[in-house]
């Protein structure tokens, strides 16, 4: 059991409370929130940002920041799409995932090399590679919205179940891709909590010099981390285009900011060393509700950006305030003891 005092210092309970309040509010005003189709719609919209947020959280925990994952996802899925279309591929969708993940791995490895081995600052490197990959996509591959191979299109139509709204008759399908998100979450949970590699990511985020002295392979861990983000981005790219049934090169670009905001909102410390998967998913859920469901109570969609901004500022403000007050309390205790 986690003691109560330690519980109130974490941000997960606050985010969860915000989600509950918000969903009850929407339910009371519209009566539509807790309908089956709305919940399935929410889960559906959660998949892509959810997948991105896992890698993003791990990078922030290690003390870095990655803004290149949407660009990696876009270029990886687009090249995969073109290769499969050109070769008239008619087999299983697994190959699409494999190629895209492989391309993501290569692109992530470039980040990992520049950051882990040349020790360049993470934000600058990933801003650079993000621009590089986007540029390649539009320049070298003259990307524009394109069809997807049959395998990917069929994969996008695989559903687990359908939810119907009894009053309006609207239906929503739960795509199989939710299983990929669940699988990635389980894998990441195990990795972060039960492997030395995962503990190393936290250790580097706490104090990189101390991690080195303790015997962690800091370069290796960073290399792994950015490769992992790359692979995850490659997979996410295929998830996205199969759910949309066409390959739009620009569909994911710009998502980095909302994903990073969701991760930070979920309690991941911007300076590194702290962050949980639970918090991250709660953060993504809150952001998704804001962008998906405010429309149910008649708030025009452009206002959702205002709400999103406010939630980010309030959310991170609360966390910052807590840190300051705990520190002050410790300083006082320290003075009293001296």
């Amino acid at each position: 059991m986690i003691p109560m005092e330690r519980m109130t210092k974490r941000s997960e309970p606050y985010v969860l409370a915000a989600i509950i309040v918000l969903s009850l509010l929407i339910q009371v005003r519209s009566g539509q929130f807790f309908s089956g189709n709305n919940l399935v719609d929410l889960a559906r919209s959660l998949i892509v940002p959810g997948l991105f947020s896992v890698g993003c959280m791990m990078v922030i925990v290690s003390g870095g920041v990655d803004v290149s994952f949407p660009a990696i996802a876009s270029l990886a899925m687009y090249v995969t799409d073109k290769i499969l279309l050109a070769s008239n591929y008619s087999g299983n969708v697994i190959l699409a995932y494999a190629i895209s993940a492989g391309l993501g791995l290569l692109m992530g490895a470039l980040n990992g090399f520049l950051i882990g081995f040349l020790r360049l600052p993470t934000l600058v490197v990933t801003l650079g590679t993000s621009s590089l990959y986007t540029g390649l996509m539009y320049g070298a591959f003259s990307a524009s919205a394109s069809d997807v191979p049959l395998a990917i299109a069929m994969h996008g139509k695989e559903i687990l179940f359908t939810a119907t709204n009894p009053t309006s008759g609207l239906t929503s399908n739960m795509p199989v891709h939710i299983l990929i998100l669940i699988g990635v979450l389980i894998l990441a949970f195990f990795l972060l909590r039960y492997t030395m590699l995962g503990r190393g990511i936290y250790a580097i985020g706490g104090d990189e010099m101390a991690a080195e002295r303790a015997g962690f392979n800091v370069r290796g861990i960073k290399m792994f981390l950015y490769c992992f983000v790359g692979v995850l981005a490659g997979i996410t790219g295929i998830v996205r285009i199969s759910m949309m049934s066409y390959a739009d090169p620009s569909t994911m670009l710009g998502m980095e900011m909302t994903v990073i905001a969701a991760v930070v909102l979920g309690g991941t410390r911007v300076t590194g060393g702290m962050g949980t998967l639970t918090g991250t998913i709660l953060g993504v859920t809150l952001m998704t509700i804001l962008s998906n469901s405010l429309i149910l109570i008649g708030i025009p969609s452009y206002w959702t950006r205002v709400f999103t901004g406010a939630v980010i500022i309030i959310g991170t403000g609360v966390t910052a305030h807590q840190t300051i007050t705990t520190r002050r309390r410790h300083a006082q205790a320290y003075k009293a003891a001296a």
Partner: protein
Amino acid sequence: MSAPVLKVEGITKSFGGVQALRGVSLDIAPGEIHCLAGENGSGKSTLIKVISGVYEPDVGWIEIQGQRFSHLNPKEAISLGIQVIYQDFSVFPNLSVMENLALNNELMDKRRFMNYRRARAIASNAISQIGFEVDLDERVENLTVADRQLIAICRALLQEAKLIIMDEPTSALTKKEVKALFAVIKGLQARGLSILFVSHKLDEVFEISERYTILRNGENVASGSTADLDRKTFAFHMTGRQFEDEYYKTPTMKGEPILSVRGLTLHGAYSDISFDLSAGEILGITGLLGSGRTELVETLFGILQPDAGQILIRGKESRIKSVKDAIRKGIGYVPSDRLTEGLFLPQAVDRNLVVTVLDRVSNRLGFLRHSQIAEMCQKWISEFSISVKSPDFPVMTLSGGNQQKVVVARWLATDPSILILNGPTMGVDIGSKYEIHVLLRELAAKGMAIIIVSDDLPEVLACASRILVMRAGAFVQELDPAVTTESKLSELSTGIA
């Protein structure tokens, strides 16, 4: 005496053209507490790094338990039982106490997976070794500095340390914590461990160690039994200079007081404080941490606002509204923690020097006049003999003493009539300390009114013309340093006879 646990002989090491060590030798017996002393730049850190395998010496050898090596790598040093506790303790602030204790061990065993039950067992074993009581699930960032240090010590014990090297272990501790640390060190000694205690603080060397080695400019200058060492020879070996004990006498230029404080009160910090300060005086305020001394001077500098009482400057009642206001009224303040409050460490020396007087070195449009800045910096650097290769070197490349001179010089640039220094020589080596004391006496003799807040009692005795002792937020007594002793001072400030 049994075979030494560590013996180094004739170690020479140079970096580029700089000779950091010239033929240094050192030996430590099992169960011995050995003190390695020397000023900044004397080669202490280089020697530690040679012993712990970070640097490879150019000449010389290292012998550990009878085995002779021309050089070591860090892993070998650890497996031979040598552990270094760095000044920053190398802990992970974001992780639990348990993980901090167990991770190194698990990495040494080349584990791939984290087993929390095993980690807990390792950690509780580690803390029980020195009887350290701490919540294993607490995050290390929530612990005090002293507790973090104990974690680093426990972690060293887990690696079967035979020799623990502590690099300036007391620099961030309170007196009480230092006492507790010394008890732990004695306990380790009783178990047969050897300690190499790196310090430049004389009192600690006397209190804890049996033998000492002093380095100066990368050479052995003295070593032997601590019992044979006295204050003067220690200072001489450290600096190569002779110091005279001096007392400061107020010159006869008193007149009306520059600063008068009447019944000043800040709830929870101090109450009913009254005193006068005249030109040419050095007022020493001493007391324990938490006695209200820092809050008092921060009030005089406009950082805190008093709840009651008056401050009179040249007989006129004044309210010091802000730091800016204090500077305008001719008050300068050198804070106690120069690293976080006093200096812009990565910035160049010249920028640090002029930051208080930017309005005086800029033209009407607000652009800086660089020739004037250069001239001014040159003047301060030579006047204070700040040793820096060029004014555009970052302040963090300077030694503690030189950094402190930069802070003091910066305030003198504002021409204050009242200068307040909080812990003026904390963490400064003996040579620079002496120079700073001489400087303060000169400034006072020229007519500046100075307040020193310090718990370094010899310093207060040597510099102040008058001493006020604070305890629990009130002045307990005023003393004349010429007829006061250190023990009298510490008696008054602790309230324990």
